[in-house]
């Protein structure tokens, strides 16, 4: 694993491209994180909350039915079973503990599907912090249950009406809030993206996924899996599980939506504080992503993914919305597990590629449960 130096780089990617106002805050956060991460009492508090409150460690589940159908050995890492229903809780518990340690009273967060927003609102309630979540107006409409959850948890939710009104615009608005409130507020960024130290810090908070899975796979298989597969929007759940296997022989597969393929179809660019692969037009304007999944509707990707892709360590294929809709149903019926639409991307790739992986072991990160997507899928499928 790469530990970025003072320049915040993973190879040529990463960095800290933010307004001057935020530079001292990023520097302060970097120092505070490095200090906390090296402090056994902080690590113990983090582990205790993750265990007692969030339910870690999460299980792995061997999918016998799908394995039989597909001719592979499919194992799920069950981040869907965490409190709040996704992997996002790992990061927000880490960041809110850190925010309290830094004396901040308030957090702001962006959210796409609402999973990071709900996790942030949850952790804020637990820790006694004020919380405001920015969410694109398009996403507010398609994820109304999560909007209500955040409000129920005591957070304010602001619908962002600028630009494409999705995740990237929610990030812009959260950053604008932070520029104005930086002295009292911590920006609880939800993925392995943004200015240094966020990509590194968020990966460290999520590497528990990969570290657990590595040991669990060793216990079950006696070896590492042949493939480790996860969906990629900003890329936090994928970086989390990849972290456990980067130094193993496993092939690392990050599945992007066809309409939001930053690595697959983007080129290096700079937005949201980082240099990374980015979907953009010929003049450098950031393109709008289009995906059935609000959580993957993001034109950029975390810089460590760009780095891993650039050195050939991980691969970033795409799947279409139609493949995702099909995989969502296949998994539900075969295993009795309704996946989040985001994770259905990973499932869709596995289903499509299974003929080329016969007899192989495949570990998939089931990063979230599909409850939040049931209403949207009911509209798409017209009932079942």
């Amino acid at each position, binding site marked *: 694993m790469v530990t970025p130096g003072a320049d915040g780089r993973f190879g040529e990617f990463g960095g800290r491209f933010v307004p001057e106002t935020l*530079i001292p805050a990023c520097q302060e956060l970097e120092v505070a994180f490095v200090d906390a991460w090296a402090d056994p009492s902080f690590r113990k508090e983090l582990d205790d909350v993750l265990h007692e409150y969030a339910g870690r460690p999460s299980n792995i589940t061997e999918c016998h039915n799908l394995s039989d159908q597909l001719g592979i050995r499919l194992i799920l890492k069950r981040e869907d079973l965490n409190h709040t229903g996704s992997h996002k809780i790992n990061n927000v518990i880490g960041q809110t503990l850190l925010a309290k340690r830094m004396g901040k009273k308030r957090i702001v967060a962006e959210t796409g599907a609402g999973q990071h927003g709900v996790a942030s609102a949850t952790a804020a309630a637990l820790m006694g912090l004020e919380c405001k979540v920015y969410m694109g107006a398009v996403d507010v409409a398609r994820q109304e249950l999560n909007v209500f959850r955040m409000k129920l948890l005591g957070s304010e939710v602001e619908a962002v009406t600028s630009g494409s009104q999705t995740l990237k615009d929610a990030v812009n608005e959260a950053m604008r809030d932070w520029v*104005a409130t930086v002295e009292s507020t911590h920006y609880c960024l939800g993925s392995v993206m943004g200015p240094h130290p966020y990509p590194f810090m968020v990966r460290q908070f999520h590497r528990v996924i990969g570290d657990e899975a590595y040991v669990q796979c060793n216990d079950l298989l006696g070896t590492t899996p042949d493939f480790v597969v996860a969906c990629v929007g900003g890329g936090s759940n994928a970086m989390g599980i990849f972290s456990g296997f980067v130094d193993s022989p496993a092939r690392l597969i990050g599945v992007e939506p066809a309409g939001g393929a930053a690595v697959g179809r983007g080129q290096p660019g700079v937005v949201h504080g980082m240099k990374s692969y980015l979907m953009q037009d010929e*003049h450098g304007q950031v393109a709008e992503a289009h995906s059935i999944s609000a959580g993957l509707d993001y034109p950029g990707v975390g810089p460590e993914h760009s780095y891993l892709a650039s050195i050939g360590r991980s691969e970033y294929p795409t799947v279409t919305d139609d493949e995702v809709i099909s995989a969502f149903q296949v998994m539900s019926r075969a295993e009795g597990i309704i996946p989040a639409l985001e994770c259905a991307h990973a499932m869709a790739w596995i289903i499509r590629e299974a003929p080329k992986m016969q007899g192989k072991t495949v570990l998939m990160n089931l990063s979230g449960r599909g409850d939040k997507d049931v209403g949207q899928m009911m509209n798409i499928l017209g009932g079942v």
Partner: protein
Amino acid sequence: MSGRLETALRARIDAGGKCLVPYITGGYPGWVESIRACAANGADAVEIGIPFSDPVMDGPIIQQASQVSLDAGTTPISILHEVRTLDVGIPLAVMCYYNTVFHAGEKRFASDLAAAGISAAIVPDLPLEESGPWTAAADEAGIETVMLAAPTAPDERLPRITERARGFVYSVGLLGVTGERSSLAGTATALAARVKNVTTKPVLVGVGVSNAEQAVEASRVADGVIMGASVVRRMIEGGPDAVGAYIREVREALDTAQW
């Protein structure tokens, strides 16, 4: 050696005056005439915004103008093409986000600016630590890179920023994004004074300087002001004539104030 922008600002300052630099969103309907109106009514330089899809330092008014401009098909190339034909007799700077520079390539972008007759560039999401590749290309092409100083900067950081600044030092008036405010933030003059303490370069206050009265207040400490949202709002509501009248009003307030 001072560049064209710094030379023009120094001439104003040395004559006992205060500098006025309005911001105009490039590509917005009437933007070229608005720049002419600024020049004709006492602006010392004009900052031309190159619209970007994700302007994180801008509040609602400049976001709106940028979006209208982008929707009309504005590109960095189309703006520079029109700037070539502008002969307004005062220096022009561009304000653009870093991806516009990075995407074009630093050397090529700097050379395009120079060829279009642009004197300076302000890149608000390119802090000191990341600025090396751009400033090297800009220096070589003779483009002055304005650096921003923010109220959050510790004392040890300010001299490093002013040292790297060319043209002038942009002293950020408040914690927040561009936009009009009912009063000038206390941080505006406090930071300007801190910056003035560590540099002899012109120091201009921008972000949150919203009317003639606030321009005078900020200039009691600073060498002048940059005015963005209040100018762009007049361009949106009243076109180039309204911009010209407003610049005239601010110019007169700055010229008649007792310092």
